[in-house]
């Protein structure tokens, strides 16, 4: 009986030992796995921090780039506005120049016409030096006929208001 008890005890002890060892092994395995997981977690956490730092740097760069872009866009818009204003001013000046040029051309035409009329009047006057009344009369009639449009122009010119002042162009 004693042997039996001993055997049983031994068996029980062995069984218990085995169970304990198994549990211990399982605990070790679990701890190892946990360690590995913790190690991975640490690495990933480090990686995450690094990524966050990179992200912060990238965000800073992005902010700077956006600020540059905003400034660039503002500057471009300002330049575009100035260019547009200058172009409009140039168009206005060109238009005014064209109008004034046409006016000057018209003046020139009438100047030439008046000069011809004046020469005709002079010829009439010169013809009177030798009492050539026929020539003088002819030249005077020529003067009256050819000066008609210029006389009308001179009358209309005196009734025309002065030209509007030129707007000032925007220059950067």
């Amino acid at each position: 009986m004693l042997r039996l008890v001993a055997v049983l005890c031994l068996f029980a002890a062995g069984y218990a030992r085995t169970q304990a060892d198994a549990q211990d092994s399982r605990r070790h395995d679990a701890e190892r796995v946990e360690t590995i997981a913790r190690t991975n977690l640490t690495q990933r956490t480090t990686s995450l921090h690094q990524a966050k730092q990179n992200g912060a740097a990238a965000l800073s760069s992005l902010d700077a780039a956006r600020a540059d872009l905003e400034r660039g866009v503002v500057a471009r818009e300002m330049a575009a506005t100035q260019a547009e204003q200058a172009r409009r001013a140039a168009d206005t000046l060109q238009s005014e120049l064209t109008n004034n040029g046409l006016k000057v051309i018209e003046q020139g035409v009438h100047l030439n016409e008046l000069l011809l009329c004046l020469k005709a009047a002079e010829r009439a006057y010169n013809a009177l030096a030798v009492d050539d009344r026929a020539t003088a009369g002819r030249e005077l009639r020529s003067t009256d006929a050819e000066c008609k449009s210029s006389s009308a122009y001179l009358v209309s010119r005196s009734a025309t208001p002065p030209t509007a002042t030129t707007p000032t162009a925007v220059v950067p």
Partner: protein
Amino acid sequence: MTAPAQVRARVKTPPSRMPTPADQSRRTVRRSSFVIALVVALLAGGVLALQRSEAIAATEAADAAVAREHVTVARLAATEDARATVQSHLEAMVVAAAAAVADTSTAASQRSQLLAQLDATTIAINGLRDELAAVGQTDANQNANLDGLETCLQGIRTASLAGMSDNRGTGMQALQTVQSVCAQTFRALGVGGSSSFVFDFADPFVLSHEGSYFGYATNSGAGRVQLITSPDLESWSLVGDVLADLPAWAVDNYTWAPAVAKLGDRWLLYYTVRERASGLQCISAAVATSPRGPFTDGSSEPLVCQRSLGGSIDPSPFIDDDGRLFLLFKSDAVVRGRAASLWSVPLTPDGRGLGWFPIELTRADRGWENRVVEGPAMFEDDGRFYLLYSGNHWGTPAYATGYLSCTTPIGPCTKPGDNVVLATHGTQVGPGGAEVFLRDGQRWVSYHAWEGDDVGYPNKRRLHTAPVTITTDGRPAIG
């Protein structure tokens, strides 16, 4: 049933007889064995319990480790997700930043282009402003010129109408009123070149007296003998007609080529005038106490009139270093179908009579003269006498000025091969009618010329003046 329970059951079995020593010994052994077994069993049980406890603890530790692992794994997964998210955002930000940089570059490039356009437009604007200012100035100038021309035109027209009505006084006033405006406008328009007197002024004769210049010319609407004055040969004022009346033997409207000489305190005006009886042009003389006139001519006949040669015209007095007075003139033989000729005659000391008979100096014998020589004018230089004269028809561009070289005022004279000294140039067409005068001690000439395309009657011949010098080869040079 556990081992200690089985042991307790066997111990409680009742005895069948009285125990012997052996039984006692066996009993003792049994008891000892039982105790030992019990102890062993208890130990074993203790060990088992301990081991069970360890196993439970290990299990719990393992379970805890597993649980922690699960937590760690979950955190790991969360961390990974977060990292992936951050990475994704990072990549997005990098892309966005790159796009922003690219857009910034594009914006900068566009701005540069716009600024370049702005610069170009600004330059264009400045150019346009300059042009506009120039056009504005032209506009103002032309307006002033239009006003000037209109004023001038009305003055001349009034003078012409007055002339048509035989009211020359009114015509003269009209011309005097507008002459400065006409001159200013003509200058502004660049009409008339260097000439400063704007109206017709043919066969001009200029003299200098007491700081003023006096200019006389062929008749015009302004009178028989026009007089203009100037302080500088630039700005002329129309004085009017200095020959108030004609002698009875003459008719009006043909008083040409006046020339004036000072003899003592008197001024003599030699001029061409038409003789009523013959209808020919002849030369007469009028006298005044001032170069301003009025000159009077109380003669009963012409001073010179070569009727057989078609009359005499274009008188020009010449006083030599000895104070002797000569008169140069032209015989108008052209009207007789012959070549014209130039003459010289000494005058009496009072200048109103011939001191000798006229001597022919030259005839029209050169091609460029086209059978016409006229308008003589003499001056002396270093013992040589030079005679300027006009050749060809006066109403054409071929009219020009030549010269003779003479040993005395009455010849003999030689005509050099190429003797034209003044011909059409620039806007001065058919220059002729030259006369010599002194300006600040320097010899100058006055002459007339048509203007541009306005050549021939009834256009005007304008007054010009220019210095005249003698070149090293003994040739007069005008201008």
